[in-house]
């Protein structure tokens, strides 16, 4: 295929301001002008990513309630876990294997096993009472080089109550989102291909 036109070729050279002439013919598909809808159909069609392994952990009852609304949706390799103890844990005395976690069906889950091969952990907090558990999970993620993100549910909370929740997980996440509504959970997980 020849370059688009001699005029354009000359125009290219005229704007290069002493950086030397273009020394090769420019095909439409090998220059920035290829950014058209018509050229988009020549993009190579293939799956450019493998399935991600995501672990979503509800740190309290409020978070679990919001999370359980979407666990039946079709996800890729996402596992949904909930902290199954009502009280917080002492992070200094709680190894990962001892963190009380459960699957949506109520069966016990082991954090270390769940994190094996994981790409992403999302901590969901709605009450701010689980800083110790968040620290245990974040510590494991750090050791395994797993991205740990936090999602705080702000719905119906006063400023002070919201601050308490945010402060409970801020130190343990590389990304923290404060969402007004629980419907951000599926929006975020879908966007992240969870």
């Amino acid at each position, binding site marked *: 295929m020849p370059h688009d036109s001699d005029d354009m070729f000359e125009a290219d050279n005229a704007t290069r301001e002493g950086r030397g002439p273009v020394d090769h013919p420019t095909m439409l598909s090998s220059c*920035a002008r290829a950014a058209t809808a018509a050229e988009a159909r020549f993009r190579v069609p293939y799956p450019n990513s493998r399935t991600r392994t995501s672990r979503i952990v509800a740190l309290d009852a409020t978070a679990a309630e919001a999370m359980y609304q979407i666990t039946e949706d079709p996800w890729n390799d996402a596992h949904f876990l909930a902290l199954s103890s009502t009280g917080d844990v002492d992070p200094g005395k709680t190894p990962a294997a001892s963190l009380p976690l459960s699957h949506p069906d109520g069966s016990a889950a082991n954090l270390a096993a769940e994190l094996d091969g994981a790409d992403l952990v999302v901590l969901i907090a709605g009450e701010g009472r689980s800083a110790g558990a968040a620290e245990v999970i974040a510590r494991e993620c750090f050791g395994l080089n797993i991205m740990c993100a936090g999602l705080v549910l702000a719905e119906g909370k006063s400023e002070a109550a919201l601050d308490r929740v945010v402060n409970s997980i801020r130190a343990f996440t590389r*990304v923290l989102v404060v969402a007004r509504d629980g419907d951000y959970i599926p929006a975020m997980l879908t966007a*992240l291909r969870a």
Partner: protein
Amino acid sequence: MLKKEINDLLTQTDADTPMGEMFRQYWIPALLARELPEDDCPPVRVKLLGERLIAFRDSKGRYGLMDEFCAHRGVSLWFGRNEEGGLRCPYHGWKYDYTGQCIEVPSEPEESGFCEKIKLRAYPLIKIGDVLWTHMGDKVNRPPEPAWEFATVPPEQTYTSKRWQECNWLQAMEGGIDSSHVSFLHSGALNSDPLFKGAKGNQYNQQDKKPVFEVVESDGGLHIGARRMAEEGHYYWRITPWIMPSFTMVPPRGDHPMHGHFWIPIDDENCWAWSFDYHPVRALTPEERQAMMDGYGVHNKYVPGTFRPLQNKDNDYLMDREAQKRGETYSGVWGIAMQDASLQESMGPIIDRTKENLVSTDNGIIMARHRLRKACVALRDKGALPPGRDPEHQMVRSAAKVLPPDEAFKEAMKDDLTARPGVKQTSV
């Protein structure tokens, strides 16, 4: 990843599309005021939200924005004569006032009142700051006039430019809330651009390329905080406000003017990238203003006589691999604005978001899409007016600050993130 139907919903803005209806709920920038510099000056063609319009300033200084084409035979009124209180089609002399009302049809008896039956669709056009703003929606729901700080400070404190960007508005806007690209794409400019260089904050940017993000919903949109390490365990925070549907501000650097953008759809495959600089408490210096006019900072150089960037897809954005090797630019493209635009245009006219692979640091983008979708659907299904119309939502600023590790930006920087007349910006 975004489902195709949501991508379509957010990217299509012609009349009678949900997102088009949403944009029509706001005052949006239509033209630079200097495009219509005097009464009876030449009319200007402008395409907004998929509608071809003509803007003019009549003999009494009134601004008009209306359908570009004469109701008689469809002639473009860009050829019109702007004279004696209206725009006259040169073909058969039909004349329209600034409201789009036909006021003369010379071939018909004047007494017939025929011209009163002819009216072009027209929208209000008002001047606030350097910008002519229009509201293309139903008059019943017209919001209060724009209250953005950049448009309301004295003229000597502000400068606005616009450029044609050859891609959909959403992918351009998403660049404005994507804080993590700065440490890469714009890293060369932090050392050399006269409107960026010399700030203490630049060092933090360059030393810590893995910022921690915090995304917080606000009444009008979002605050996106990026946290980097500073001295003694403190954090350097940069906060980007996004106000719906498409206003963003870049966190400031030192005492440089503050800057930001609007992205306004021309049609689904083109948008206007509006760029502004202002200083809240002092006049721009002649050097700063000249730098903006020369294309530094968030502005750009032009193909003479147009709003098309000099670096564009027809010349591969004047890619300079030697400058890249020398470390002057990270991508090889000169200038912050065109570094962004070149990459955003390379995605194609409308990026296929079903194929993207977002990561958790993209949560600002994910949340913005989520809020846009919700507002769009609420407007379509329930008639709920979207956030960002309230002047209070528009009284925002970006800010940069070093905070102790136990302080959250949302509380510690609340005042810093609010536009306060006569109060200097918070910057590092």
